């Protein structure tokens, strides 16, 4: 298991509501979003698969090129494929609107 932390101080737009999508289960992940108490975005990823820190960093960096909300995002990953990660992040954005 590995825990990854990333901060995005430039993402400061308010998040409309709390979000919880995805599943706790093999090959899946859950994404939780809530308004950040300090007005900046923070991401905490707990993953069952070690050694993918750089890939996660790239995925989340890319996500924040089009997501500008001051959200505290918690991601719990259970060995999801990159496709499933993209799907759940997109779903979280849709639900947050």
């Amino acid at each position, binding site marked *: 298991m590995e825990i990854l932390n990333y901060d995005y101080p430039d993402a400061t737009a308010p998040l409309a509501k709390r979000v919880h999508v*995805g*599943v*706790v*289960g*093999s*090959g*899946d992940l859950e994404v939780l979003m809530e308004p950040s108490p300090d007005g900046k975005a923070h991401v905490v990823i707990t993953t069952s*698969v*070690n*050694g993918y820190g750089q890939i996660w960093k790239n995925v989340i960096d890319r996500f924040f090129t089009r997501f500008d909300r001051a959200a505290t995002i918690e991601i719990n990953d259970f060995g999801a*494929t990159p*496709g*499933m990660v993209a*799907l*759940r992040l997109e*779903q979280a954005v849709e639900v947050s609107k």
Partner: protein
Amino acid sequence: MSPDRPPPRSACPSAFRPHDLLRLAAIDALIGTGPMPATMPGWVRPALAAAPWVVVRRAPAPDGHIAVGVRGTARDERWAAWLPTRAVCEQCPPEAVADRYDRLPAPRRAALPALAAVPRLAALLIRLGLRGGPTGSVGFELASGRPTATPGSDLDAVVRADTPLDRAVAAVLAAGIGALPVRCDLLLETPNGAVALAEYARGPGPVALRGPRGPRLVADPWAPSPYEETRP
């Protein structure tokens, strides 16, 4: 091995489906594929020598081949390959692995929570009139006989849902596996791909359908897939 050899008789007459465990006639029949390394990693040969079984993956494969995955002893030891169908000498789908339960040593069945829960899962599926069984490390161990599950293993499982599963039945199933003494992840296999029981049983709302071309959100996992549509 001769390429002209006729296909072997399999234990199950149905086509190969994701999660089926296949016993290999020859390790060298495996052909590496992406996105994982195409060349056979060093751990593959000893792993298959110990237990010559692979699992059918949900991915496209060339004609006459099956997309399969090889599992090693470590969690990150997974290798994707194509297997010519003629190199399959035994097929064990998840609904058949529980039949091999008595072949495992009783102390091992009792000591590992994921193995100990197999009869209760099987009874639950029978009670609800569903076809399915264990996958993952437990399914692999039951099919191959090679110790694969660990004391910390979850019980992964699949239910063949060729026709829509009533949400009320799904809720009973979810409650049933939730009451098992081990964490159980169950996938519903529809003709279009798989959805997590936990997500489907929540009630109406989009669910992630894992298809051969990757996952997508759908309202109804049994609705005809847009990828499969043909012109009239």
